[in-house]
């Protein structure tokens, strides 16, 4: 089991019975607390399994040490602090076929955070896109 604070069953979720209830109902937990994490749900598929195993947990593992990936039966559940980025030109090279950012979106099931595309890159970030940071268009040729 992952010990990261971003794990599926981190923190209070490791507690059971009365211990869980005590923390769940504690005064501090009666309002929301700002979080800089992001969550990504990826539907399992031939391509997305490659993205997870070969890129996020492979060649790019060192890029974001806060990233946690968990197998939840039909989907991969990912949580990280700050952002998660997937470059589809890199996925294309790995798969040996054209694979655009829209091909990726076929199997991206859910996002908690601000997700967007720019060119062939998919990003989910804790930044407030459109408020704190402007959403960019592809630069004119």
């Amino acid at each position, binding site marked *: 089991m992952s010990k990261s604070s971003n794990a599926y069953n981190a923190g209070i979720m490791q507690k059971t019975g009365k211990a869980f209830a005590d923390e*769940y109902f504690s005064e501090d937990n*009666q309002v929301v607390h700002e979080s800089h994490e992001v969550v990504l749900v990826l539907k399992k598929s031939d391509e997305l399994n490659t993205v997870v195993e070969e890129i996020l947990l492979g060649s790019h593992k060192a890029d974001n040490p806060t990233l946690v990936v968990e197998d939840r*039966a039909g989907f991969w559940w990912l949580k990280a602090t700050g952002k998660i980025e997937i470059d589809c030109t890199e996925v294309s090279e790995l798969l040996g076929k054209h694979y655009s950012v*829209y091909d990726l979106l076929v199997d*991206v099931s859910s996002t908690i955070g601000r997700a*967007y*595309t720019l060119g062939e890159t998919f990003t989910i970030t804790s930044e407030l896109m459109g408020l704190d940071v402007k959403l960019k268009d592809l630069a004119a040729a």
Partner: protein
Amino acid sequence: MAISAATKAATDALAANPAPVSVGAQEVHRWMQSFTWDFDKNRTKYSTKYKMANDTKEQFKLIAKEYARMESVKDERQFGSLQDVLTRVDAANRVHPKWNESMKVISNFLEVGEYNAIAATGMLWDSATAPEQKNGYLGQVLDEIRHTNQCGYINYYFAKQGQDAAGHNDARRTRAIGPLWKGMKRVFSDGFISGDAVECSINLQLVGEACFTNPLIVAVTEWASANGDEMTPTVFLSIETDELRHMANGYQTVVSIANDEAASKYLNTDLNNAFWTQQKYFTPVLGMMFEYGSHFKVEPWVKTWNRWVYEDWGGIWIGRLGKYGVESPRSLRDAKKDAYWAHHDLFLIAYALWPTGFFRLSLPTPEEAEWYEANYPGWYDMYGKVYDEWRARGCEDPSSGFLPIQWFIENNHPIYIDRVSQVPFCPSYCKGESTLRVLEFNGKKHSFSDQWGERMWLSEPERYECQNIFEQYEGRELSEVIAEGFGLRSDGKTLISQPHTNKDGKLWTLDDIKKINCVFSDPLKAL
């Protein structure tokens, strides 16, 4: 020959914004955004008190060609899996019978939500002025049509390929008598399509989709897989691949009004009302379906809720918007209490009213009772001992002459319906956040279970006039009502709903119900 004014305008526009030399989707997207329209005379069914900015962006930069290609690939994968391997391995008959019943509720109810979301996002298209924002809403209209078909299809698949089709194939005709239908229509219909357009967006996109689709459409697939159901993950995870754009639409709706003065006055109240409206139904119903409608448990529902609703939606969506004046919903404390207890309260009532449903329910086994007590200390003393009594009185056996609703009557625990959410509650026997409040308006009494619904009702009482089943069928005998409300299987005598999922158990018929002579009465008349 002189060219027309329109042709000249188009020629001039192309000169100023040369067409892209490639067909790269995002290059085309950027180019298309330079063409805009005059929306001064926008017409929409319901206007909004907010002013939506006209420079709002769409986060995924979709154009019709890429959208259509993407969605067709999703459908090919989904229908290919269902019609090929899942049929070949007889997947529908490998589902645990208890979970098969849960999917009657989940997929039928989601279908109604998706259908209403078509109208909701159409209304938002009418309300917005930013071309990219309109583009996002338009994609969502098309998505919702797809989702309506998908939900209909999964019911069809379960009915055709699986076990006990009744309820998968004809649920909606029971909508007058089923006590869960009207509450579902409050969240999935009225909340999405009636009222201020931005408030509808907050209900649908910022709360319904960004918050509750994660347990309803994502976490549900964990429960499905654990209970032998591989059809639901195939369809629901494909539905959810569109929901991320809907969540972004909801967020961009908030972005579009963030600098409007009206936001500082109204946004937190609208958010709190939407949060309470959605949670009041989803929290107990989903918890009940997951825990009481499964054999193999993934985790306590309160943990699922704590992760997806409180920590992640609350912290990552709402918490991050704090610097723009968005506050933690004031009803959160009560919602958390509901997430711990309200599904247990609801199952007690749902089981007591089982003959009016369109799905089969079963009492917790001794092993399940242990699991409940370990995860919800105090469960047995409140609920478990009641189920033991009902079981001892033969509630599953048609010859027993016992319906659990009799226990509520014998023990003077009247069941009311909350006028705003339409969710049934028993104020004298519950642990969730429910207390009885009664108000009169135009000579009619109205019951409420909480301060948040009561406040919404006080601001527009004429909005919540839906009759509940106790008012509608006052004085009528139960078997008559079931027959009139299409609660029977195709043999014309056996009830669709049953108080057990044992395939060898005896099934209740209309005659069994008639012998008990149970008559509807409106508890508000006794006050």
